[in-house]
């Protein structure tokens, strides 16, 4: 039985540089300021990465593997809920593409191979637009959105 898969592609234009955008995704000190979470890894292909909520409990919400790292233009990771880390079928894939566009940057996030209708698919489809919008605001104004009320993974 093959379960139906679904994908999302999100795009935002940011008045910033590819280096700053790449850093904002991969540097925990920056990510926590607009995401309310940190992405922790050495970002070497084959290494693990984890998505950790920036609170006292430091809950690990998402885990996966680094597939490809080409700073500052491209990052590919696998993605699964921490409770489903042992199930190979639960992994989806996220591709960050960062390209210069006019005087700024075009950031595209493709989340592919998600199980259609799953809680994860619903969660990320609510989460990514908010995260990207907050990232844009953070890099352009220095302030991210208040994500403290956002318990979702992304």
């Amino acid at each position, binding site marked *: 039985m093959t379960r139906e898969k*679904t*994908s*999302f*592609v*999100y*795009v*935002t*234009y940011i008045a910033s540089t590819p280096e700053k955008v790449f850093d904002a995704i991969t540097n925990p000190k920056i990510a926590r300021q607009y995401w309310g979470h940190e992405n922790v890894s050495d970002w070497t292909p084959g290494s693990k990465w984890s998505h950790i909520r920036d609170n006292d409990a430091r809950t690990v919400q998402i885990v996966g593997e680094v597939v490809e790292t080409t700073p500052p233009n491209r990052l590919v990771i696998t993605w699964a809920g921490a409770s489903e880390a042992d199930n190979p079928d639960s992994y989806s894939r996220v591709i960050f593409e960062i390209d210069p566009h006019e005087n700024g940057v075009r950031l*595209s996030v*493709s989340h592919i191979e998600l199980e259609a209708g799953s809680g994860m698919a619903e969660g990320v489809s609510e989460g*990514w*637009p*908010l995260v*990207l*919008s907050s990232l*844009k*605001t953070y890099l352009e104004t220095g302030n991210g*959105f208040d994500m403290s009320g956002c318990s979702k993974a992304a």
Partner: protein
Amino acid sequence: MHTDKVFKALADPTRRLLLDMLCENNGQTLGQLCQRLDMTRQSATQHLGILEDANLVSSQRRGREKHHFINPVPLYEVYERWIRKFEHQRLSLLHDLKTELEGKKE
């Protein structure tokens, strides 16, 4: 400037329908979208072009096919700018009213 494009793109029932259709089933091709719309490919392409230009739709080529994805990121920016602000004002008005009424009870 970019917000203008978002509002203009949304100011059309066909384009809002296209967004609803992609929300329901993301990643559709032009052919799939046209099947459910009573409209020519040419006019659907134009509407999708306006949505893409406003960054409300993103697309990806897979082989010969172009797949369209709803991109709600600009809507969140509109929400932050045009809705949350007013919600905040309304909530603080209610707060003031509550303080006023409760204060008078004493």
